[in-house]
């Protein structure tokens, strides 16, 4: 089975990395998280409630919605911080990509471990730029906010195509579809992977100029 893939590309400042990633990944996870399942007799189950939290960004003009789950937030922040640290090890402008992959597990015969089958992958390519003046930063703050809004619209559009989602499992298979490690909510099984690399320094000036030119050409 081929997993659906969706790729976004964004440029932002170093200090905006975390908020950009959290804004996008939390929006995706908000759509891909259910309340906790409680199985009853005869295969029936009831579902808990997913709380909703508005989160304002400090370095971007943007507010995103996330599930009310501190654990899920912490887990995502941990992954994103690792990616940010890897990016910022590189001096100057750099780029990298980070993926949020949803998968389900398929039981295998002993002694083989369960097989992970991805069914949806969201990839974000990030260009980290250096800005020298406060006015540039202000423009960047607004621009990145606008770009994030565009991405959220894309995410909602993709979510409402109602394409393949793993079936809600019976109780024994719950862990093969959902991540049941969170106490309050139940996202689909997912993992985050990333890779980084430096971008050529010659592009820096161009990026900044493009930023300005785009602004003026609105």
């Amino acid at each position, binding site marked *: 089975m081929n997993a659906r893939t969706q790729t976004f590309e964004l440029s932002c400042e170093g200090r905006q990395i975390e908020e950009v990633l959290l804004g996008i990944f939390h929006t995706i996870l908000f759509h891909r998280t259910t*309340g906790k399942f409680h199985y009853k007799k005869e295969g029936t189950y009831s579902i*808990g*409630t997913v709380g*909703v939290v508005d989160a304002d960004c400090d370095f971007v003009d943007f507010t995103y919605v996330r599930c*009310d789950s501190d654990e899920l937030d912490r887990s995502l922040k941990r992954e994103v911080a690792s990616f940010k640290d890897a990016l910022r090890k590189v001096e100057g402008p750099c780029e990298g990509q980070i993926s949020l992959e949803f998968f389900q597990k398929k039981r295998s015969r002993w002694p083989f471990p369960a097989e992970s089958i991805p069914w949806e992958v969201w990839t974000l390519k990030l260009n980290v730029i250096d800005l020298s003046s406060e006015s540039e930063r202000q423009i960047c703050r607004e621009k990145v906010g606008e770009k994030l809004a565009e991405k*959220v619209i894309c995410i*909602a*559009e993709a979510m409402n195509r109602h394409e393949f989602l793993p079936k809600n499992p019976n109780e024994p298979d719950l862990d093969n579809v959902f991540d049941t490690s969170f106490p309050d909510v139940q996202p689909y099984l997912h993992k985050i992977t990333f890779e980084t690399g430096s971008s050529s320094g010659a592009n820096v000036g161009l990026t900044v100029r493009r930023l300005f030119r785009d602004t003026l050409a609105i």
Partner: protein
Amino acid sequence: MTENLEVNLSPQDKKDLDKYIKFLCLKSIQVIVQSRLGDKVRTKSKPSTTGADWFNLGITDVPRVLAEGKRTISGQLPSLGQSLCVEISLTTSEGDSMILETWCLGMNDRSEADIKVSYTVYNRMGILLRSLFTLTRVTPAYRLSRKQGTDFVIMYRIYFGDVKFEGLGEGFQVMRVGAVPTPIGTLTMSAAYRTKLTIPSDGYAGLQMKADHYMANTPPRYISRNPSEPRFQIYADDLPADWEDPLQEIGVGSCSVSPPNQMTFSRAATQNDLQQFTTAAIGEQGEHVNLSAAPKVGAFALGKDVVGGDDGKVCNVPFELLTQQKAEPRERASSLSPFPASEQTGAMFDQSDCLRMTSYGLAGSTGSYGSQLSSSPHEDFVVVEVQKPAFGKCDSNSDLGTFYKECQNPPQLVTFADSKQPCVTDTLASFSQDLAKYEDNLDEFDDFVLSLQEDQ
């Protein structure tokens, strides 16, 4: 996809589907309106299922919004040509208003007969609501609603009908939130939102004045400015049959579907207790009303001693009149009775503006500027003695007036006389072209700079 297959639905499924759609409507209204209250939303996740939360989402019901939603729905559900709309508008403290966006839950005829109502449709409605949550945070109205306060407030209106795109100005955008196919048709949710957020300086109620508005025999009107009352209110029953909504030009009052007594604007302001206003304030037919903010007290206004100090006043007294030396007895100010509250029928005037005007000539002198209203504009002002202005001509009756007239009618600037001005987009496009051109010629410029340095 087939035509309406309602007949194939079991009665239970039909009943369930109607219930789901009804609650989708009610919850959508809550999500939209709560996102425009100006505060951040936070609801708790509940791992255990003690109570039934619709669509397994934590959406608190604000009672006032719920009541308004139920009243609008009252048995009606989105159907072909009949969409549920939530209109979000902005009203400034001056009374100007514009529609910011309209969220629309509609139904089209593309049905899916085999879809499971009690599982698939319900879950997809949950996804749609999640998308609604995220998308309500990305339109321009969200940022505005977070900044609302004394300068402007965000209002909402719920109705069944079509979206009035014309009220959203030029360049509005339409955003698709999502769709849920059902056996009786596909539920669709979308938003149309304004992109130009500047209120034009003309064409609005409250800013227009008729030339004969201050006719001597017309009693001035004003609106009650008691802060404890809803800021603007008019009762549909009081309207004349041929009442025409001046705000319709900007779409605020455009409510062709709801009967007038259902036209309701509600302010999305405080968290739990939304203050609701019934329709925007309009005076009698054909008159324009200024819905200015809290009463302003001008430099020459009396304090508590003046009864009715909050009232509006006529301020179109010719300026030259103030310089006339035929001072009337000052006692007149206090002898006039205040305008009785029962006769207060309309709205008008910002007294601080006329006071600002008078203060040029009256600085340093004492005078009364009460709230007296009479049939003649000449009697509206209490004339005070004016000292001869410094460096003024001997004829002090006219020099100040002349000066004022000159200030009022300066010659037109040549710049503005030129009708062939480039528009903003052209100017911006030319910037981009110039920038690109300069970039191409970087070497040339560098050489030029170097040559200058060498010259030095």
